[in-house]
């Protein structure tokens, strides 16, 4: 078990820099998820922690030791890959025992450890099989078994669930989380799937183009995005963003956008005439058939079961609202949308940063 400290790490391939000075503290026993769209440098960051790629500058320490130039084998890490990377010519048992056999540990100790890992991962009946005789989920469990038998300082997961089907993914998600509770080893987990990130992480690190955009607890990031990118990236359907200008209407601050006035809380730190981007999550827009709120025209209605997603046009812009009420709405209907004042976000259009409300 160990903490991981990344200090101003840069990584270039040739002349292209893909990680631009990232600093991050990962506490001992934490479950940290690196989240971001493709090409944001999250996998690269994981690979430099593992030592599979050298860093261009900066420092990486694992458990207080700087490991910049250490070979992966000397870093006491275990990595689980997206495509499992099992040794196809070995049985499940040998796959898990491989590294210990090479270290010439006593046979009974190896057996004890493999049996322990197999029982945690429900792999005991499959120990004599070859990887090709296993299903995707079982293969991924073998890959995790291979990692946990070594009792490493840090687990590194590189999109381990991407190759599994949706149902299995949900199941494995829970299993990995349980595993972390049992072992409480530090985990660094890379994914582009925000649901995985939200459900599993203690701390989410949102990355874009090789830069950390925000670090925080899952709900903190969801409820208080630091900037436009995080606001739009986290959440599905994503946050509605409306561009406009701050004005005052009857002494109440509003944002004039697309010909409507969006109300602001009195506490908003904005001045009249200031250009802003007004953000509100779909579930914080309450659709009503009359009265308060701003007008919109329904374009698409998507019932998902627990809730209904309503896509509506405001001026030229389409926005989304989510409700649990069973509203009978047809495309073309006129509705009014009421934003929840305490849950709105204002962003500076130039920098994209949040403005306090």
């Amino acid at each position, binding site marked *: 078990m160990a903490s991981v400290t990344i200090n101003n790490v840069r990584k270039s391939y040739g002349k292209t820099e893909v990680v631009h000075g990232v600093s991050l503290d990962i506490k001992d026993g934490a479950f940290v998820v690196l989240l971001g769209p493709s090409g944001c440098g999250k996998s690269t960051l994981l690979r430099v922690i593992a030592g599979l790629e050298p860093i261009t500058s900066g420092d990486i320490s694992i458990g207080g030791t700087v490991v910049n130039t250490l070979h992966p084998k000397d870093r006491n890490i275990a990595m689980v890959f997206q*495509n499992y990377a099992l040794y196809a010519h070995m049985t499940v048992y040998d796959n898990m025992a491989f590294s210990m056999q*090479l270290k010439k540990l006593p046979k009974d100790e190896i057996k004890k450890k493999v049996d322990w890992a197999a029982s945690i991962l429900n792999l005991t009946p499959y120990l004599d099989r070859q990887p090709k005789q296993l299903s995707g989920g079982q293969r991924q469990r073998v890959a995790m078994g291979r990692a946990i038998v070594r009792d490493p300082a840090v687990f590194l997961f590189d999109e381990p669930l991407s*190759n599994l089907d949706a149902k299995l993914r949900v199941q494995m998600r829970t299993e990995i989380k349980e595993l972390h509770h049992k072992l409480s080893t530090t985990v660094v987990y890379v994914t582009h799937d925000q649901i995985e990130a939200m459900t599993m992480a203690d701390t989410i690190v949102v990355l874009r183009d090789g830069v950390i955009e925000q670090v925080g607890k899952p709900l903190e990031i969801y409820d208080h995005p630091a900037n436009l990118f995080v606001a739009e990236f986290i959440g599905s359907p994503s946050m509605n963003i409306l561009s406009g200008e701050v004005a005052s209407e009857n002494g109440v601050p509003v944002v004039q956008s697309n010909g409507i006035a969006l109300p602001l809380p009195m506490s908003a730190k904005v001045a009249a005439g200031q250009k802003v981007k007004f953000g509100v999550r779909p579930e914080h827009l309450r659709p009503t058939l009359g009265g308060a709120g701003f007008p919109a025209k329904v374009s698409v209605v998507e019932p998902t079961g627990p809730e209904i997603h309503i896509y509506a046009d405001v001026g030229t812009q389409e926005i989304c609202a989510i409700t649990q009420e069973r509203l009978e709405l047809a495309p073309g209907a006129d509705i009014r949308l009421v934003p929840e004042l305490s849950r709105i976000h204002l962003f500076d259009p130039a920098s994209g940063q949040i403005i306090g409300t």
Partner: protein
Amino acid sequence: MNRRASTFAVHAILAAYTLLALFPIFLILINSVKSRTAIFGSPLSLPGPDTFSLVGYQKVFSDSQVPLYFFNSVLVTVVTIALVLIIGAMAAWALTEYGFKGATLLKLYLSIGIMVPIRLGSVAILKLIVGMGLVNTWTGLILVYTAQGLPLSVFILSEFVGQIPKDLKEAGRAEGVSEYQIFVYVILPLLRPAMATVAVFSMIPVWNDLWFPLLLAPGNGAQTITLGIQQFIGEYVTDWNAVLAALSVAIIPVLVLYVVFSRQLIRGLTAGAVK
């Protein structure tokens, strides 16, 4: 229907080619058990009760040198294949896995060896071997044959090493396995089919070669079987019985080696490694 016709055509062509390729061997085999007059009288007919004769085999096996020649050939071939495979795999791994400076250039340089026949350098090789005092030794032959087989070996194995999923090597690395151990325990087992291919390709020319034994090891008990057979071919009289019998026997070891290697040519060895 169309598909069946084309399958049939393919098989017909392949069967015809097989017959063509096997015919000389068939001729050697049937004539090796015929009497001398029958060989010349009707070389294409099968041995009958009148023409059947094992005189060739008797001569070959009564010659005390032949077992030695056999041993020499087998030894030279097996050691050469072993060296070609081990060194070739190591070179392929190094050239493919570690993109060091000049790796591509080195690969190109090595592939020249595939295009330029090693016999062009016979004079230089002979000088070199004489200079090193390796004339009439197994070592001399093995070194030359290893050099002859390596370019193709490195070339083919590089391709296969390149196809081994990157994650497998990295999984090993992340697991605390050293580079040597990754090569031996992860890469080599996965290269088995490729190595069998290389072995088959490099074995036949070495076994069949007459040129280098003639140049580098013509005497002193280091002769190979191809050279040994030459003793039955005289300037004025050739003992065809013995030549054909010796040739027939010489097919056996290479056939055995082929069977051994071809069993390794299993496809899909990486199935289940990665999705």
